[in-house]
């Protein structure tokens, strides 16, 4: 039996490759509106009109076959059959944007010169027509001798014609290799499309252009962005409360069921305090994670995120980075790991390194539970609006941190090359609720999987550290102080005392070096284990915690200091491992840990000490 035919999907970034890939293969994948989202090679299978299977490789977006970044190099190498992990494709589907045909054909014509059969897909014909541009695809097909299919991949318009082309025997294009430089190629492309592209003469303002007048405006643009972020955080605090109470109640019920059915003992305590307390303490934040990704998905899906990238480019230039760094940094708001991996789309090795070093400062979703818990403790009677404002402040602080450190690294690392940032602003589109829903489902699944594996394991180990060795005392606080974790917390107390932390917080800080959200589960374990009065919740126990001098342990100063610490501290072992791999050096990974944790300490110290002048 013959192996299925393999098609490679090739095109400039943001031509709708990923959308077409999804339509062809049915595989779920992230669809973004900004360039550079396709970093990894992705493959899938589809079926043609005869029911025969074919394979599709979604290659990273590229502007030409003269690679300038690592992911463009992947595209070039696969098409030349130079990658041992990927067989050379049997044919290529070249995706071009109908509105920018000339520029997109630059890559397409280079592909045609590789002696591979080609199908040309002219995508986004609808937005081109809005601008008064129509492409005579039949004329192009006659000239090139290959199928040229007009499409609107996001609406699946043109799929039938593409299926017909995929079912036929693939053919090579009637295209003579261009001798000479870029100008010569554009001249040849001009000849190819002559009479095949009609413009109606007048420059039309599309709805997208009108929206852009406000949304990327130097003043209004930023106001809109701040408004959107403020709305997001307000929703986080106001709307998420109900499902959070429900989850809290469910875990409380689970705990009481175990207590009713099991005799008192260590294993029961491990299950109720360690497992249910630790995992429940993190899972309770699921609604907020889902709301965060709903907003991110909405901004990404409508095309607004690309505008944010565009506005950020102006700021990025100030610290010597270009807007391309924004895509990895933005991904880091979900998780620094895919963010750092997305730096592969950047052309300059130096810019890649700087972006990698500062990426962990962006407020990843693992920080959200820590922030929410501390803000609630800090403002026990605060309104959702006040809490949202503090949260907004933390995000702004992280952005300032990213810029400040990027600036420092830009000044200290040798400058070797200057690169140009080209960003295409896609047309605004109605959000695809299905895509947003899928993204929320994916992120929720990842969060729960993490809670059920890493957090569960660490919670069990932490419970043991807070329980053993045991004392004869019935008092929870004495038992905790006697435990291994308690001793460790007391040992580091002199170092963290100037930051306003006691030894119990010290346990949380050390435990969360593996993953930030472990701070929350540690506090749950500590205060569930200690609490004798079952009516009290973890939050009320923490709020009631007193220092030796009778002052509340979690006062405003301490909470602020902890929040600042968590904005900067490098508390994620997985990120250290990714930095080590992406930079191919322990030196940068260790530098990242040292500079971020060191700065977090100094910043938290300053917050607590300076706060002493204003707050009790």
């Amino acid at each position, binding site marked *: 039996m013959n192996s299925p035919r393999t098609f490679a999907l090739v095109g400039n970034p943001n031509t709708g490759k990923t959308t077409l890939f999804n339509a062809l293969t049915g595989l779920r994948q992230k669809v973004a509106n900004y360039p550079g989202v396709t970093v*990894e090679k*992705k*493959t*899938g299978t589809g079926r043609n009109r005869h029911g025969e299977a074919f394979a599709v490789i979604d290659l990273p977006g590229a502007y030409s076959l003269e690679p300038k970044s690592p992911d463009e190099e992947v595209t070039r190498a696969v098409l030349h059959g130079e990658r041992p992990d990927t067989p050379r494709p049997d044919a290529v589907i070249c995706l071009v944007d109908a509105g920018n045909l000339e520029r997109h054909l630059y890559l397409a014509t280079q592909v045609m010169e590789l002696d591979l059969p080609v199908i040309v897909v002219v995508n986004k014909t609808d937005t081109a027509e809005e601008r008064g541009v129509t492409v005579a695809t039949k004329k192009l097909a006659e000239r090139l001798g290959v199928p040229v299919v007009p499409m609107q991949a996001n609406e699946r318009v043109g799929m039938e014609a593409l299926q017909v082309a995929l079912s036929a025997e693939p053919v090579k294009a009637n295209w003579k290799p261009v001798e000479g430089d870029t100008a010569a190629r554009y001249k040849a492309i001009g000849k190819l499309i002559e009479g095949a592209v009609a413009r109606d003469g007048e420059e039309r303002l599309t709805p997208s252009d009108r929206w852009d007048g406000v949304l990327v405006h130097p003043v209004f643009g930023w106001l809109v962005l701040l408004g959107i972020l403020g709305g997001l955080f307000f929703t986080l605090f106001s709307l998420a409360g109900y499902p959070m109470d429900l989850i809290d109640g469910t875990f409380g019920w689970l705990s009481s069921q175990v207590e009713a059915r*099991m*005799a*008192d*003992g*260590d*294993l*029961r*305590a*491990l299950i109720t305090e360690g497992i249910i307390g630790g995992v429940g303490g993190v899972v309770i934040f699921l609604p907020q994670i889902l709301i965060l990704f709903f907003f991110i998905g909405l901004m990404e899906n409508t095309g607004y995120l690309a505008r944010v990238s565009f506005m950020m480019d102006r700021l990025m230039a100030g610290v010597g980075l270009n807007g391309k760094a924004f895509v990895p940094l933005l991904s880091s708001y*979900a*998780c620094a*790991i*895919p963010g750092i*991996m997305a730096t592969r789309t950047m052309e300059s090795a130096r810019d890649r390194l700087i972006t990698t070093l500062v990426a962990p400062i962006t407020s990843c979703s693992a920080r959200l539970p820590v922030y929410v818990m501390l803000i609630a403790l800090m403002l026990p009677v605060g309104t959702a609006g006040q809490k949202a404002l503090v949260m907004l402040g933390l995000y702004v602080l992280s952005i300032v941190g990213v810029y400040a450190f990027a600036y420092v690294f830009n000044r200290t690392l040798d400058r070797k090359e200057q690169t140009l940032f080209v960003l295409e602003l896609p047309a605004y589109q109605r959000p695809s609720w299905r895509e947003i829903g899928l993204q929320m489902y*994916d*992120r929720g699944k*990842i969060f729960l*999987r*993490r809670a059920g*594996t*890493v957090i569960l*394991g*660490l919670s*069990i*180990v932490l*419970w*043991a550290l807070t*329980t*053993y060795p045991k004392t004869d005392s019935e008092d929870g606080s004495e038992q905790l102080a006697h435990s291994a974790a308690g001793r460790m917390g007391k040992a580091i107390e002199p170092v963290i005392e100037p930051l306003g932390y006691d030894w119990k917080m010290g346990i949380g800080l050390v435990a969360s070096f593996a993953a930030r959200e472990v701070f929350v589960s540690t506090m749950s374990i500590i205060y569930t284990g200690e609490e004798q009065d079952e009516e009290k919740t973890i939050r009320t126990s923490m709020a009631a915690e007193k220092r030796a001098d009778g002052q509340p342990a979690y006062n405003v100063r301490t909470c602020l200091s902890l929040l600042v610490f968590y904005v900067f501290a490098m508390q994620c072992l*997985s990120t250290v*491992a*990714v930095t*080590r*791999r*992406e930079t191919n050096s322990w030196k940068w990974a260790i530098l990242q840990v040292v500079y971020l944790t060191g700065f977090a300490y100094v910043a938290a110290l300053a917050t607590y000490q300076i706060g002493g002048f204003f707050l009790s």
Partner: protein
Amino acid sequence: MSDWQSWAAPAVVIITLGILLWRNLRPSKEASCDEECNCGKKE
């Protein structure tokens, strides 16, 4: 106080610790790509 629980709890802890160490120290396909963050999808 249930006696069997006083050895069962440490046993669960030791097994968990073993699993955690095994998960982190075993030679993985792609050592630093943390699947929890969904970046290591390979077909």
